[in-house]
């Protein structure tokens, strides 16, 4: 059973979003995603200041099994990237919702929470996939 914090919103692409007090949004991959990927060995980050289209490429995470694109869940500009992941990509394995965060974005048009999954809805999604 993977961990699922209740104060986050989720995407069907196994990303989580946390709305920060300053209006920015922090994004990472879920515990379920890191378990499925296995040991992460490399992450490719966007540049700070870069503008991202919704659904466009944002980052690439590479594990011993596979390389996966992490897509931008919202249209936004990049405020910060987690520089520590460059040396310690396993932070995404160990602490996916904390020290393993990937980027912080400033949304171009706000965040419509109805377009994302609640913790319960995300849980149903991964339960269904597990069959």
């Amino acid at each position, binding site marked *: 059973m993977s961990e699922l914090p209740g104060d986050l919103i989720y995407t069907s692409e196994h990303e989580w979003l946390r709305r920060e007090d300053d209006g920015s949004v922090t994004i990472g991959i879920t515990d379920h995603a890191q378990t*499925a990927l296995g040991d992460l*060995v490399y992450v490719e980050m966007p540049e700070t200041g870069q503008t991202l289209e919704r659904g466009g490429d944002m980052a690439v995470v590479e594990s*011993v*099994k596979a390389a996966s694109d992490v897509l931008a869940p919202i249209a936004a500009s990049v405020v910060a990237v987690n520089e520590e992941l460059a040396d310690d990509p396993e932070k995404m394995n160990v602490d996916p919702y904390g020290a393993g965060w990937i980027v912080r974005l400033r949304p171009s048009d706000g965040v419509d929470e109805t377009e994302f999954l609640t913790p319960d809805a995300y849980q149903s999604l991964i339960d269904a996939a597990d069959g």
Partner: protein
Amino acid sequence: MEKLIFEKSRTGRRAFAQSPGESEDINIPESFLRVDRPQLPEASELQVVRHFTRLSQMNFSIDTQFYPLGSCTMKYNPRACNALAMLPGFAGRHPLGPVSHGQGFLNCMFELQEMLKDVTGMQGVSLTPMAGAQGELAGISMICAYHDARGDHERNEIIVPDAAHGTNPATATMCGCDVRELPTGSDGDINIEALKAMVGPKTAGIMLTNPSTLGVFERRIIEVAKIVHGAGGLLYYDGANLNAIIGKVRPGDMGFDVIHMNLHKTFSTPHGGGGPGSGAIGVGDRLLPFMPIPVVAAATIDGKTTYDWLTEDDLPQSIGRLSGFMGNAGVLLRAYVYMRMVGREGMHRLAEYATLNANYLQVRLRDAGFELAFPDRRASHEFIITLKRDAKTFDLTAMDVAKALLDHNYHAPTTYFPLLVDECLLIEPTETESKETLDGFVAAMIAIATEAREKGVSFKEAPYKMPVRRLDDVKAARQLDLAYRPDKRL
């Protein structure tokens, strides 16, 4: 554990049989000569012989072990192919020698082109791509060149199923196209409705492997071809799994416009460890003018046939050259000899025995309690089992089984590919294995599963009996050292 040859090195030790000798008579300007000696190992001839003999004994190879590596078609490479390809007339031929001195070689290459056309149902073959990935590059480049030549410049989308080999989207991207990912249905066939919605005026083509990487035959291929052609796109056949259908169904008859063949797989030349390969391509009528050069042509005058290269002058719309000469000549020769030995009749039996062996293994493993990824489908030449349940219940993962198999003296199947199936092993026995070998493999699989399921044995540390134990692939990836030297050891 065998030390590196560099670690055995002692200054001044020589193996005279391998010594290059010193010459004072060097006609190279001083400024181009190196000052320091190169760092080569210094060892005696006997040390060298023992070192490399021991290494060869540690190696897993098709000559020593069953090698069911899915998608790689590790069949036996007949010795006769080697012997004939190494005849002095072939081995001593210089690629820049005059065409009149290489008529025998060119004759073989022409016949190889003709046989490959026949067996795939294509109209033209070029042997020049050096490996499968280069064959893919040639194929998609030709599709792009075809659309461009028609002034159809908007077509820049290549459709690739989500189960495809990673080289497919990589190839499309290298050719400047956008990749559209096509979902697969739960029965293993591609989702036709999704395909219909995806094609349009931007569709350049679709890349398909058939049978797919899931080890099942794409049953609605004729319909797929109609949809893609109807939208103005072309069909590319990834020949990775050609061994399943060779001599039975022809990609040309399914509607494919271009195909690459891995001669090193289907036509049995030694491969693995990165080469050498051959990614010969075949094309239908529409792509004939765009074939990579050189291609071998034959002309018969007064009953005498001579062979020559077709070059830029003959094929002005060609996508060009992919290598200095024409692929790996030795690999092409071995594939040629193999096809001549197997013959037309034998070619039919290749696919029959490859699929029979795969289906036999699939049924025996299913009956032994392994879960099939596609239980309702007949296997092609390979099939997938998923260790999902064992991983959850007994912490026995696909990687654990793969490593434990090494201790039973079987090479591991392909692990964690295709990505669509969790905890999967992709198993391809090929036609060259006996029933006894297949039964031995099943017995090893049962032994491993039984120990884990009934006795709680963990295989996290396996293999135990190999020269090296479980390698730390995370550390290998994170702390990659491509310039290791014993004296610079950390």
